[in-house]
């Protein structure tokens, strides 16, 4: 049971990261901040899940990374959505809505 729960969370995190990156390319810390901000501080993404997830998405070809300078002139690794990643985001969003609707339907019926 524990493992299936973490699978759901992992999938969700991937979706959220893709969503955050759909606005503009950003580095790991900025992604965490953006998610925190968008969730109104409800979601704190731990670094322990963030970086493996980014690695996984990159491995899947959904995001690409590049080292470049920040506004303060600091070197940081920026992630951006690839074309495949953008398509994947659409699919993931659709599938999430489907999932939510299904859960919703079940909850309503009982």
């Amino acid at each position, binding site marked *: 049971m524990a493992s299936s729960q973490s699978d759901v969370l992992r999938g969700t995190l991937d979706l959220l990261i893709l969503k955050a990156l759909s606005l503009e390319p950003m580095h790991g810390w900025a992604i965490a901040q953006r998610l925190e901000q968008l969730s109104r501080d409800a979601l704190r993404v731990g*670094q322990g899940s963030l*970086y*493996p997830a980014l690695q996984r998405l990159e491995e899947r070809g959904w995001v690409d990374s590049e080292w470049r300078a920040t506004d303060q002139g600091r*070197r*940081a690794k920026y992630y951006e959505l*690839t074309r495949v990643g953008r398509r994947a985001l659409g699919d993931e969003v659709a599938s999430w809505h489907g999932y939510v609707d299904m859960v919703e339907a079940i909850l309503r019926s009982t």
Partner: protein
Amino acid sequence: MTHLLNRWRKRLRALVHTSAVDRELDEELAFHLEMETQKYVREGFTPEDARRKARLAFGAPRQYKAETRNARWLSWVPGMMMDLRLGGRMLRKYPGLTIVGGLAMAFGIWFGTLTFEMVRLVVFPSLPLPGGDRIVQLRLWDTEANQSEPRALHDYMIWRQSARSIDDIGAFSDATRNVFADDGEARPVAVAEVTASAFRIAPEKPLLGRVLTEADEAPGAPPVVVIGYGLWHNRFTSREDIIGRSIRIGGGFATVVGVMPEGYAFPVAHELWMPFRPDVADLSPREGPAITVFGRLAPGVSLDAARAELASLGRRETAELPQTHAHLVTQVKPYARMFMEPRPQDMWLMLSIPLFAVMLLGLVCSNVALLMFARAATRESELVVRSALGASRRRIVAQLFAEALVLGGVAAAIGLAAANFAINQWGKRYLAENMSPLPFWYDPHISVTTVLYALGLTVLGAAIAGVLPGMKATKGLGTRLRNGTAGAGLRFGGIWTAVIVAQVAITAAFPVVTYIEQRELWRAEAYDVGFPSERYLAVAVAMDAGTDGATADTARNVKYATALEEMRRRLLDEPGVSGVTFVDRLPRTEHRYRLAELEDPTRIAAAGAESLAVSRDSLRWVSEATIDPNYFDVLESPPLAGRAFNSGDVSSNAPVLIVDEVFVKQVLHGRNAIGQRVRFVPRSTSKTKSPEAPSAWYEIVGVAKELGITSVTSRNRDPGIYFPADLGRSGPMYMAVHVKGDPLSFVPRVRAVAAAVDPALRLAELQRLNEVTNGVLWFLQLWIRITLGLTAMALLLSLAGIYAVMSFTVARRTREIGIRVALGASARAMVLSIFRKPLTQVSIGVALGSVLAGLVMLTEMGGGTISVTGLGLMLVYGLVILGVCLMACVVPTRRALSVEPMEALRVE
């Protein structure tokens, strides 16, 4: 596309430059920490508090790094690399296991690779030519005689004109011709009279000059030849001005127009190519020379389609020429399968050989697994600790697999090198002895496919030798960890015991096979031919059919006989030559056999008729040779009774023969042979057909010594009979020249004399008369070596198995031994208790092996009884095996006895 390339570049970079990528990850995490700290500073914390808070929120970076690494492509590779490095270290740490296990696996891989390569050659031969799989042979098959009909000139012409599914149809006929080099010396050369299309089927740029063209085939075109590299290099000293020169081939001359590059041997194993110019007179159906027809499937045409077209052409011929073609069908088959085509039922047999090799590898690796398991048992505490530190079972098994893989890798390198050696040393000779000449496409070598196969075997072997013991050793590791009973949880099952017993049995039985083979070899080497054969030079003498191809048979026979006589006359004039004689089969080699019937006067008197029906009961197989009248004289073995042949015997109306002493002993049971009569009965091939009439009666005029009329490989000497030879009519003969000194030093003179007598005389197999069966002896030696190798391997594996069981037993019983010694058990009692199990296993194995060996001896030696010496030898050998196996117990036993009681208790 660029995106995909970029992704792969990154993946490879992560795999190859692991440390650089790790440094970047460190930098990325450090950046994250710094940004987090700055955030807290902005929220009003002091820099120090901000850093502490950020660090606390960050958690354990080591773990993130591990997880991030695991998300990378092929993330298991670096771990595997570490395991492999560790495996390499283990090889050095346990040299005994490395040597025994490595040798055993190398043997398995060697055997597997070798059988794979040889079976691949036979079952899936391929032409090393462009589009080689589309080159086909066309042939006529006589369904009544169940053999091919090589006289296909008539049909070849039709195929060439009508067949649409096959291009470049060509033909060749085989011949061996004397080629004279610059020094005037003649050597027989394999010649192909071949159509120009051969050089399109097997295209190759000539080294010098040109290849044959269609114009060369025109009647009246000047005679030209293309020669092979070997011929050009060895006989014509690689001279560049060979093109345009006229060389002597048999009785004629031809101009060299081209030299082919090294290795070119199309159609089969040819060294010289002449234009194919069939005689118009030979064009009648089923007439003319034996030819082989080839072609290439037209583009887009399948083999089946070509078969269908040619079969329909064949049916047309059958309808038009019922007299000759009633039983002929036309076949199309892959060219590479011209000489060997395993029947479908044999295919399985052929494929079962590599399967057997894989099973043997499995057995060998099971033994290595036994050793690995025993070692894992001694390392159990290490495994338990690793498991306690969080290593999963899969991780531990993977490590043992990696260790076996390193061992297998070393073994594969040794096995492949040994296979390469064996193929070059023995494989090529083996094929050449079986197929003479060896077609150019049978070229055994370690190909890429073979290497890949060997690697596959290695992985399989490593899986057996590493994963199996890994699974067994890690089973219930957690429970053992909790109970603190390291070692006690592992057991050797009954299967292992059976494997060890079976191996000891095989080890005990193998030497009997070796002994039988060795005895055959001794017997063959000690074969007495009754005369000093090492002082004779043996030469096969044949004669070219004549370059004009039209010489009538009788004329050629006369020419051959005259040439032989002239050679004899000239050789006898040479200093040091004391005799020259001719025989159709050389002593020691395989002779022809006939069914002989001895005349029984009592039966004839009773029946009162000369043409008495053949009495099948009185028939005997006898070995025959046809000899020149002076044969016994030259061999310095005058007849023991009666007389030798004289020149009158050949033409006489009263046929005579000479028998040997074995005949007198076995057929006549010691009675006087002279004057007795013998006749020969044709072997009836079928029971339904009425047997042919027996021959006329031959009178025995002499008794000769036993002069090697039986093959060296035969166990018993067969009765022999000699017929007088009619030189010229008795077929090609061997010449035996009795010379003073080394016969081989006389070879150049014999060649010179032959060339001077008749350029069409072909000399071959020039060797000392006692060495004519060296090829057979080589085979026997090869088999003995193979059996010895197998015996050594079986012994090694048995030892390894017993050693493994013993050291495992001791490791498992350390505490028990310690306590028993502490309680005062004597060393003797301890040794006995440790030895009991292996002693029982080895004894059962030796006993089973002895029974097996006894059975083999009884069936093979055929004597029905085993000699006392044989029995004694078996007993001694059994004891030796027992002793050697017990030696394997020495190290573990010493380890067991040196266990200090307190130490043993503390260890646990």
